[in-house]
């Protein structure tokens, strides 16, 4: 018996059959979408993990260099050196469509064409440790930007995969079985009605014949 009440009519049956067809088609499409998303996600997340481990290590050593630079310089001198940055990063964002998930793509442009042009201070009053530190940080900047792109993509795709998975499961385990059940219920009900009509007609025919020809008397 169907979980929800359905009218056992032919119209309802046609409607349900059409619904089942749509559900099956949607289920197949969503399942394909989920599988492809998952494949791309796993690829991306592996890259994400590798990038993160790499940049974290690089940042760690850069931080150590900065600690060293800070220890060897007066705080005022350091603050002055960092006060007016020469370089500026501008990010142009685009959108890449991965299976209907819009993930960001970053194009980075720097203010001065030379990316190595980053020392915002004269070399006279700063220690060489600071130069090393800035250089080591600059070296991991491209990775950092790529990491931002990849990690954001992963987050967006993970959310989409979760949504798609829920939809697939809802169709597979709820909508499709329920519709099938309802269709079965209506078909059986209609068949049953037909049989009972048939029997009723036969019975009526019997009764009419009986009345017309007095079969009953003859048989007696």
């Amino acid at each position: 018996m169907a979980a929800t009440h359905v009218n056992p009519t032919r119209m309802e049956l046609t409607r349900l059959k059409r619904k089942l067809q749509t559900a099956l088609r949607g289920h197949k499409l969503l399942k394909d979408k989920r599988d492809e998303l998952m494949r791309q996600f796993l690829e991306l997340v592996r890259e994400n993990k590798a990038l993160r481990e790499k940049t974290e290590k690089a940042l760690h050593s850069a931080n150590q260099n900065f600690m060293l630079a800070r220890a060897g310089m007066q705080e005022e001198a350091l603050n002055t050196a960092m006060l007016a940055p020469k370089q500026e990063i501008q990010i142009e964002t685009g959108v890449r469509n991965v299976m209907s998930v819009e993930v960001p793509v970053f194009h980075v442009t720097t203010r001065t064409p030379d990316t190595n042009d980053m020392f915002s201070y004269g070399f006279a009053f700063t220690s060489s440790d600071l130069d090393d530190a800035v250089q080591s940080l600059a070296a991991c900047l491209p990775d950092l930007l790529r990491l931002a792109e990849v990690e954001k993509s992963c987050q967006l795709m993970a959310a989409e995969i979760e949504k798609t998975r829920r939809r697939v499961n809802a169709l597979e385990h709820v909508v499709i079985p329920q519709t099938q059940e309802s269709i079965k219920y209506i078909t059986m009900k209609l068949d049953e009605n037909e049989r009972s009509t048939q029997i009723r007609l036969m019975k009526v025919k019997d009764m009419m014949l009986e009345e017309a020809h007095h079969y009953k008397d003859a048989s007696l």
Partner: protein
Amino acid sequence: MYKAAVIGDYDSIYGFAALGLDVWPTGDDPSETAHLFRRLCEDSYAVIYITEALAETLESEIARYRTAPLPAIIPIPGVSGNTGLGLRHVKRSVEQAVGSDIIFNDKNG
């Protein structure tokens, strides 16, 4: 045109100024920090790097921007060391997508 920002304690982030990223040092007041963070998210920043120590205190704020297309909020280790928060975030993505963690299994047993 978007920019990139770095937020965290001054010692961890001042170097990024030389590279052309906007540096936003935070003070001791947590509510002010949260306010600053929210302002940066609404501003024209495509990427916001945040130190792991600070990210830990702003977890709920960060979660709000997870599904938004921009900005990308990326935890980075500060001078106080690596807390593993960044990798935990990646791990959470995997769990959300797959249902269980299949990438980091080999490492964490």
